[in-house]
C-alpha cells in the first residue's frame, strides 16, 4: 500500500474513534494522542481499527514509533511492505 493510501486509512481509523477529527487541523509532525485527545483505551481502539483495515499486526513494542501522523504512516509503510526492502 502506498503512503497516501495508508494515510487515508489512518484517518479513517482515527475517525472511527474520534469522529470530529479533520486532517487539515492536525500537525502531522506533532504527537497525535495529545492533539486528538486519545486516552489509552481510545488508542487501543484506534490500533485495533488499523489492524483490521490493513490486515497487519502492530505489536506493543512499536508504540514508541507511533507518535505523530507522519511517523505512524512511516512505521506502517515499513510493516505492510517488508518484501520491498
Amino acid at each position, binding site marked *: 500500500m502506498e503512503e497516501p493510501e495508508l494515510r487515508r486509512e489512518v484517518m479513517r481509523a482515527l475517525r472511527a474513534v474520534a469522529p*470530529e477529527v479533520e486532517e487539515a487541523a492536525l500537525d502531522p509532525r506533532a504527537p497525535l494522542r*495529545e492533539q486528538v485527545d486519545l*486516552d*489509552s483505551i481510545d488508542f*487501543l*481502539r484506534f490500533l485495533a481499527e488499523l489492524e483490521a483495515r490493513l490486515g497487519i*499486526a*502492530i505489536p*506493543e513494542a512499536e508504540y514508541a514509533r507511533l507518535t505523530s501522523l507522519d511517523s505512524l504512516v512511516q512505521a506502517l509503510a515499513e510493516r505492510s511492505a517488508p518484501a520491498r526492502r
Partner: protein
Amino acid sequence: MLTFTLPSLGADMERGRLVEWRVKPGDTVARGQVVAVVDTDKAAIEVECWQPGVVHALLVPVGETVPVGTPLATLLELGETAPAPGTTEPARAVAAATATAVRASPGARERARELGLDLATLAAGSAAGTLTRSDVERAAAAPVGARTSGEGTELRRTIAAAMARSKREIPHYYLAETLCVARATAWLERRNEGRPAGARLVLAALLVKSVARAAQEYPDFNGWFQDGAHRPSGQVNVGLAVALRGGGVIAPALAGAERASPDELMRALTDLVTRARAGALRSSEIGTATITITSLGERGVEAVFGVIHAPQVALVGFGSPAERPWVLDGEVRPAPVLVATLAADHRVSDGHRGALFLARIAALVQRPEEL
C-alpha cells in the same frame, strides 16, 4: 395496566427530551430492554424498562421535553387484555414509530442547542453516520451571525451545580501514595505480547479492578451518604470519569468490576467509554455509581485530587505513569511509578481508614496475577 415513567438519570436531572422510541404499541418488552432514548443535560441515554409487558400506548412524542416522573408509555402486563377503546384514552396519540432517530454526539447535541439548530434538519442534510460537533458548527457557519453563548452550556451548568454542591456539603480529606507499577506493566507486556490490539489490556483495567476489590473490602468508601448517614452499598458500581470530546465529563457506572476477569473488564471498559463518548449510555449506568475513579493522569499530570460525586463518599484518582528514580533493595533504579490519590468524605471515614484503603489498592495493583 402499567405506566412507564421518565426515570431520574442522576440526582440533578429535572427533565429530559425524548429522542427516539425503540418500541411501538403491540411490542413485547422484556425486563431490562432499552425502550427509548432520552436526551438529558449531560448525554443521550438509552432508557431501560424494568417491568416486562406489552406496549399499549406511547404517551410522549419524539422531540418533546418532559419532567422526570412523566408517564412515557402504558404497558399491559403479560396476559392482560387491552381495555375497551375510549376507557383509558391516552392523553395524546403518537406517531413515534414513523419518526426517524437522529444519531448525534453529545457535543453535537449541546452545540445545536446553543445555536438553536434542529438536529433532525441537520441530519436530513448530512450524508450518513453520526452528527458531530463540527457538522453542527459547519451548518451554523453558513448564516454568519453574532451568536455568543456567554453564559456557558447546559452541561457546564450541570457540572457546576454538582461540584458546588459537593464542595459545600462534603468535608473532603485527601491522601496520596506513590506506587511503583513495574510488576504490573511487566505483567501487561507479557500478557499482551502476540495479541492483536483489540485483545490487549491497558493498565486502567487493572486499576479499576483493584479499586473495585478494595471498595468491597472497605465499605466506608463505597455507597451513598443519604438522610444524614452513610449507607454502604452491597455491590460495587465503579463510576468512571470519562472526558467528553468537546468538553465536559460524565461518570457512568460499571457494575460487577470486582468479579470480572481482566479480559471481561477490559471489554466492558472499552464498551462503556465508547458509548459514553458517542452519547449512548443506558439509564442503569447513570446515577448508580457507588465510588468514582478519575484518571486525569492520562492527560499527563502527575496527580489528581478529585471532587467527590455526591451522594458518593469517595473518589480515587490516578496520575500518569512515568519513569522516576525508585529505591529497591538499597539501590536507586528507574521505574514506572504512578500517584494514586483518595478524596474521601470525613463525615464517613477518617484519614487512618483512608490510608488503609489506599494501601490496599496499591497492594492489589502490584499483584496483577491475582486480579
